């Protein structure tokens, strides 16, 4: 075909989104306002969306298309990150926004959606392609997917368009419910059309881990049990549950962070190199790694996992409530606002190397990072202590300041052979001072072009539930003496003891 090559210029622009409609369930909700519409608008601003593009918003509240457009304009203007609002662009973009009100439980809603999609297809030329986005409560996922299936919306009318579905986190409440959800979703959509969101995988810095590992030749040879002593993954938040106490009480830190985000991060850090940067290849390796994580036996849970909950404290002169004092939380709640686990990977590369993962609320600061601690130098040439105290450490920082730092020893200037540890820092944000796309921009764009690399697959989700399930089981049967750490500290003493048992200490990130 003439000119087919000219249409692609990967050096200067990325893949084009085909004509399509995004159908958002929960369009009157928080996530749509804060993240989804600003991300779609930004994609339009970046010229990533074709003329034939539309959004159909769905929720219960009655609204006209115009009212929906106005509401979305306000949200986009308010929540757009580091990006200008262009009124001309918005005017035409808004012409593609439509709204349908109705209840997910009502079959009539799906008929109305089908009619709207038909209308949008002829008006906006969306070619029968539709991406459904479930931005609703997890308990409504199955009902909605089945409603879509009954109405035949899982396939396009004339069969030549695609239908895809994005499902928000959390995907299941435990192993059994995740399996059940998977099987019900797959009765309607085949696995290739299912995009399970894990917005951590959409973060630039998590993607940068792959670039760092597989784009360079010098790190991979060290990336194994011979050189790596242990790995620490930390995701700390300084805030508490911020009004989401009732939800959080049911979820807890292990489910909310470790089961999904942090196990995916661990997968990214420790997986084998994929043969290509393609969706299946990358996900195969991540899934394989997740399946290789040793699943704890019930008696191992006591020594390999620590549950914590913050109690009240005074921080900087202000009184901070404990978790049980937060609105909507039961006074005897057994919820984990802190969770730490010691995992090992049963494969040749990692056998015997502990991966410590911790996450918590009301920690001293907000930070997410991965620290790879290397073994000591084999011989202490410069004195017994040197090298023991501060072994080489490679830290991959995910937030707030994305970057990479390497700690190594250097000679103190002056006479004598005194060494001191120094860090060499690469700061992603400052070194490339450009705007990075938000995770939702990246993920929406990927789903629209059909690239599932950064989405989780059924086997990945089930493997990660497999890892945390024994811990959940033991924790649910045990009554803990909570709270066990004060707000503003790095978590319960038991967590330090878990590492001390292995001769390790938690870093201060």
């Amino acid at each position, binding site marked *: 075909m003439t000119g087919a090559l000219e249409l692609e210029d990967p050096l200067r622009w990325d893949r084009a989104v085909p004509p399509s409609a995004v159908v958002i369930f929960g369009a009157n909700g928080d996530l749509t306002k804060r993240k989804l519409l600003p991300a779609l608008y930004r994609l339009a601003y970046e010229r990533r969306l074709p003329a034939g593009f539309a959004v159909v918003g769905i929720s219960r509240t009655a609204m006209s298309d115009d009212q929906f457009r106005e509401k979305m304009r306000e949200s986009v203007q308010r929540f757009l990150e580091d990006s200008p609002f262009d009124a001309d662009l918005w005017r035409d973009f808004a012409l593609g926004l439509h709204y349908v009100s109705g209840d997910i439980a009502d079959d009539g809603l799906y008929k109305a959606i089908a009619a709207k999609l038909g209308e949008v297809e002829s008006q906006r030329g969306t070619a029968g392609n539709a991406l459904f986005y479930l931005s609703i409560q997890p308990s409504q996922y199955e009902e909605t997917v089945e409603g879509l299936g009954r109405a035949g919306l899982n396939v396009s009318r004339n069969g030549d368009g695609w239908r895809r579905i994005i499902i928000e986190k959390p995907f299941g409440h435990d192993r059994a419910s995740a399996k059940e959800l998977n099987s019900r979703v797959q009765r309607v959509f085949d696995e290739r059309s299912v995009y399970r969101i894990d917005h951590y995988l959409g973060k630039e810095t998590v993607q940068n881990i792959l670039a760092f590992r597989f784009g360079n030749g010098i790190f991979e040879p060290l990336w194994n049990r011979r050189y790596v002593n242990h790995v620490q993954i930390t995701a700390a938040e300084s805030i508490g549950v911020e009004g989401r106490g009732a939800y959080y009480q049911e979820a807890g830190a292990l489910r909310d962070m470790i089961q999904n985000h942090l196990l995916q991060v661990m997968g990214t850090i420790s997986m084998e190199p994929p043969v290509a940067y393609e969706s299946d290849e990358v996900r195969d390796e991540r899934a394989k790694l997740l399946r290789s994580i040793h699943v704890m036996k019930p008696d191992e849970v006591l020594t390999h996992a620590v549950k914590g909950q913050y109690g009240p404290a005074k921080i900087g002169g202000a009184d901070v409530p404990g978790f049980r004092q937060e609105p909507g939380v039961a006074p005897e709640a057994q919820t984990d606002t802190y969770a730490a686990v010691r995992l090992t990977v049963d494969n040749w590369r990692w056998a015997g190397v502990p991966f410590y993962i911790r996450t918590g609320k009301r920690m001293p600061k907000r930070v997410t990072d991965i620290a790879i601690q290397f073994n000591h130098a084999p011989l202490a040439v410069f004195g017994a202590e040197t090298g023991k105290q501060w072994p080489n450490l490679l830290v991959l920082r995910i937030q707030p300041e994305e970057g990479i730092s390497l700690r190594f020893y250097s000679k103190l200037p002056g006479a004598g052979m005194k060494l001191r540890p120094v860090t060499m820092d690469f700061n992603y944000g400052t070194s490339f*001072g450009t705007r990075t796309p938000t995770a939702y921009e990246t993920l929406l764009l990927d789903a629209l072009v059909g690239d599932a690399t950064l989405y989780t697959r059924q086997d990945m989700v089930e493997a990660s539930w497999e890892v945390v399930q024994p811990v959940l089981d033991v924790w649910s049967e045990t009554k803990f003496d909570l709270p066990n750490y004060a707000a503003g500290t790095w978590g319960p003493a038991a967590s330090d003891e878990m590492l001390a048992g292995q001769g390790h200490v938690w870093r201060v990130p």
Partner: protein
Amino acid sequence: MTGGVDAERLLRELDEGWRQMGKSEGGGVLRACSMTMVAVSGAGEDVQAAGETLASIMHEHPNRTIVLRVDGSAAVEARTTILCWMPFGKRQQVCCEQIEIAAPRTGLNEVPPVLFGLMVADLPVAVWCGDPRLSVLEELQPVLRLASKVMVDTSKLDRADAAAVLAKLRSGPWLVGDLAWARITRWRQRVAQEIEAGCRKGDSEVTFTGEGMPMAAVYLGAWLEGVIGVPVPLRCEDPAPPAPGMGRIRSVRLGELTLRRTAPTTVCVQRGEVRASTAFPLLRDADLLREELGVFGRDAQYEAALRRVMEG
């Protein structure tokens, strides 16, 4: 020796600058470098605007900039500065180095040895000539030979002059980048997107405003010719110069698709019955340079278009 300017002394000056900076900044400074950027400017160029352009690309491409001003100076002179900024309101400063060298046209052949001594080891060298005619000066060819990429902007030249400069420039081993080409990326992207979205191809035309044929339009025509397989007419809609910010390309038509610039930052996309707007934020030289600096490999699309321009 070049009238007292020697690379080692300049580097010592920079070193001293770093030391001072380290002392005065309690939080420390971060020194970042991804390349050496040699910016060659002529006597008539706006020094301040060029300085701002270079400063703003440092954020994304931290570098050691060597500004070579070919002007009426009596002898070759040089001075060093360290440019710092506070990224995203944080406390730590990020700093890059700038060295300015002024040389008379007659002393230009003394400059390359100084530049060689100043280049950052083991990192790519990029050369940027706002005035493309400077890039073909014989005295500068040794510098170009060490460059991975040489960037020019042919926007202000007429087609014949631009073609002559580009023909000479592309005979070297370095990659060539032209800001006039980067200026049309958005047009190309948008057209490609709509064709991929099923828009039917057909007759094509590129229109522009202002006197003389702008290189951006020439490039766009050459690219479209590659897309549809036949030459694309370029037409002047209005010989009056464009309003500020409007750029010189006014519209692109291809079959059922028309892109038309309706305001400085807006291009209206009409595809059959469907209409959309697309944002074309104002492009500064810094944006274009940034794009070119992001392309450090063989640029097959540009080469194909350039070939067509040369043949046409």
